[in-house]
């Protein structure tokens, strides 16, 4: 069947039946969420177990069950590998992994897939694991990718039932209260797995530092936690700033950042109370910095800035350029440190951030957002999941959630990467539909979604280089085409869920080249 974007979607993917994407806000649900486990407690219970094996044993984890993790240590995470290694040692097989995200550090999971310890993955795959499965590495079922808000929704709705949640925490007390803000190796908020802890049949906190009761802030609470295990290492905070957080020096990328900031300045949203999302990635960081400069010059105080917390956001807060930071995960050590001490630097969980099936999303309060793209197309659709050779390389992150919510979503992308054109007739995979994208900024100028004639007028008024997207594409094509093209077979490697649980696109296995 074809979904609302004309993408061919199978009726079933693996063992799930598929509901096709029908529009950014077409799906409407009401009623009740899935039930959470219930268990009475009495005084004097001991939750601390001596080892991961002991905890795995105690939870009753069996072959074929689902285990979940969060990714706030990002590239520095040490818990996922430790837990899956322990499962392998205990002879467990056929596990379904339900992480928020996997990174390069989890490359060794490929061995566990090959040996059958892990047979299914639902979660963002950044790097080697995604590359492996899209090149024919065998999972028992296609992977499912969800946005931050979409994952939360999938748990609450019962789409995904978690058997055991393993929660990495830089500090916890013996009764299960846990956080990522304090301790010797803090990583920032770990609230991604709040919902895992509440809905999983069993929850295990894994920490490297046991603190006196109560460990605070109360990100993860005792009432959701069955066991606590102390290990030598949960993660390396040095590596939370992996790669994407370097400020760019490239003149072309700085120009993109400058134009993106100029676009916000020229928009009607640039006024007292401006709220915006500043993402990771060199261009987004630079755009955030330029926007901060413009706010300072214009004496505008922003409402809130949202995102993975960064040094630049903390500086804005200290300068009085914004009133609040809403922070879902820290992207550098300065943001981590600020979270512990500044009450205006607020921890945000993904449910509050972006759960479509809830009574409100923080992203809906955004005026403007800077987001990246691997590919964009003439319909303003954006792909952040697959490389142009068809490999699955990145998760969705908050891309869909932010784009759907912000009044003005600005995609920043170079028109060419090496010899790869970034603007295509049709993106390889749709992550986020053009319906919720307002502006695409390249080093060659800005393309405005035709439905935003109002913004186009503002940009022209301000003298910004507004271009037709087809013209931008032709200009870049002339410099790098022709280009080889992957030919996809029928076999589905991964489903890309829209934030409401419908399927917006699928990633198919590459069969050949033309």
């Amino acid at each position, binding site marked *: 069947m074809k979904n609302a974007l004309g993408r061919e979607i199978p009726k079933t993917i693996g063992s799930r039946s598929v509901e096709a994407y029908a529009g950014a806000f077409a799906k409407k649900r009401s009623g009740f969420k899935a039930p959470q486990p219930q268990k009475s407690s009495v005084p004097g219970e001991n939750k601390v177990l001596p080892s991961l094996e002991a905890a795995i044993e105690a939870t009753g984890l069996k072959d074929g069950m689902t285990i979940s993790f969060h990714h706030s240590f990002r590239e520095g995470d040490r818990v996922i590998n430790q837990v899956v290694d322990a499962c392998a040692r205990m002879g467990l097989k056929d596990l379904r992994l339900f992480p928020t995200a996997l990174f390069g550090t989890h490359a060794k999971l490929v061995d566990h897939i090959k040996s059958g310890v892990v047979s299914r993955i639902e979660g963002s795959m950044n790097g080697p694991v995604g590359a492996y499965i899209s090149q024919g590495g065998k999972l028992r079922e296609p992977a499912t990718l969800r946005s931050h808000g979409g994952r939360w929704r999938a748990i609450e709705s019962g789409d995904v039932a978690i058997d055991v949640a393993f929660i990495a925490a830089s500090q916890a007390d013996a009764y299960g209260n846990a956080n990522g803000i304090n301790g010797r190796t803090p990583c920032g908020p770990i609230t991604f797995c709040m919902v895992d802890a509440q809905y999983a049949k069993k929850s295990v906190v894994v920490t490297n530092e046991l603190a006196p009761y109560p460990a605070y802030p109360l990100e993860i609470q005792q009432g959701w936690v069955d066991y606590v295990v102390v290990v030598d290492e949960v993660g390396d905070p040095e590596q939370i700033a992996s790669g994407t957080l370097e400020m760019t020096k490239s*003149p072309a990328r700085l120009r993109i950042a400058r134009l993106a900031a100029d676009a916000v300045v020229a928009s009607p949203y640039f006024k007292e109370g401006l709220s915006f999302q500043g993402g990771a990635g060199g261009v987004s960081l630079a755009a955030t910095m330029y926007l901060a400069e413009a706010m300072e010059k*214009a004496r505008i105080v922003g409402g809130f800035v949202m995102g993975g917390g960064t040094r630049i956001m903390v500086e804005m807060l200290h300068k009085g350029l914004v009133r609040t930071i809403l922070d879902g995960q820290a992207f550098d050590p300065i943001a981590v440190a600020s979270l512990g001490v500044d009450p205006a630097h607020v921890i945000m969980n993904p449910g509050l951030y972006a759960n479509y099936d809830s009574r409100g999303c923080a992203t809906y309060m955004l005026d403007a957002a800077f987001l990246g793209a691997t590919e964009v197309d003439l319909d303003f659709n954006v792909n952040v999941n697959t490389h142009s050779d068809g490999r699955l390389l990145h998760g969705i992150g908050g891309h869909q959630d932010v784009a759907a919510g912000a009044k003005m979503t600005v995609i920043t992308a170079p028109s060419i990467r090496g*010899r790869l054109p970034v603007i295509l007739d049709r993106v390889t995979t749709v992550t986020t539909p053009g319906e919720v994208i307002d502006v695409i900024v390249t080093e060659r100028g800005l393309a405005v979604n035709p439905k935003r004639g109002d913004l186009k007028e503002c940009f022209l008024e301000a003298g910004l280089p507004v271009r037709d997207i087809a013209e931008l594409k032709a200009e870049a094509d002339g410099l*790098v085409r022709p280009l080889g093209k992957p030919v996809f077979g029928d076999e589905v490697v991964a489903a890309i869920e829209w934030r409401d649980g419908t399927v917006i696109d699928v990633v198919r296995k590459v069969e050949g*080249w033309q």
Partner: protein
Amino acid sequence: MPDETMVGSDAKGDCRVSLVPGKSLAIEVATEDPRLFERGIREVVEEALAKLGRIRATLSIADKGSLNYVIAARVEAAVRRAFPEIPAIAPKVRRRPSEKDAPRRSRLYAPGNNPRLLVGIELHGADCVLLDLEDSVPPAEKPAARVLVKHLLGAIDFPNEVWVRINPLSLGGADDVREIILARPHGVALPKAESKDDVVALSRELAKAEQAVGVPLGSTWIMPIVETAKGVLHAEEIAAADPRVTVVAFGAEDFTRDVGARRTLESLLFARSMIVAAAKAAAVQASDTVYADVDDEVGLAAEAKLARDLGFDGKGAIHPAQVPILHAAFTPSEKEMDEARKIVAAAEEAEARGIGAIAIGGKMIDRPVLERARRALRLADRLGGQRASQSIGGDGKEAR
């Protein structure tokens, strides 16, 4: 002997092409992802070879994300190194016409043999891009750089002016001229101009080259760069040497070295004033030297303001980030514009009434003042809507 046959580099955005003459043509392509890129690269190589004639050789190309025109340039340079008798490719060119008194608030330099820094150089809004074949290119790379600059000039539709800084005529400048004239830059910058003869000699080379390739005679302008003691003392004859001279530029780095000065505002004042006076006496523009500290925006803005106060029309930039700062300094302010409009209006009224003298509020307006007002209005007219796009919040208008 890899150095003998190899052109280009392994740097990002470049490719390395080597060529071994043989009995038939063979093309070997190495690239990061052959499935995506090999076919395209092969096509570009074949297209370039077809323009060069029947080549019998094995050509190997190792690509590091190079654009089509970079590949074509590397192929041509490699072929002509192996077969010097093969004539140069004349690219198709889309060059927008300009005028001698077009705004040149910024002249942005880019190193002529470095694709990573050349690609996209047209996108930063500079009034005048200067592709460099001189100081930024090591002697051994000059032939390849000429060819690369030519292909860049052919491939890119520059929104404003594009010039080439050639080498002094005694150091290969004539070869530079013959190559790049095929791609019709607006002009050439002549480094270390020291006398009228230097400019006239270049003008002759340009005339020969223009005639050889059928470019209108005299259409290629000259920007003498004055950067020695001798050049400063001869600024007047340099500026007036030839009708091709459009703008005289100052090069402080070489000048301070030549005279043994330290670079201060005072030590450069004489040279700057000489150049401005010489240029204006010859009715051409004057462009100030570059500011080398890319991170010091405040210092750049201060020096640009000084140059503007002295009468310069623009200034050199060595990084795209410097361009908006220069534009802010050299764009007439709203106040200057208001004054200019009043003066021109008064002059028109006086003319309509047949009155010789022009006065505003009882104050007489001299001819040079009227001319300056007209120039400011023409400049503003040309700049049109482009001012606001150069910096956040349009702060450029208020910078002076």
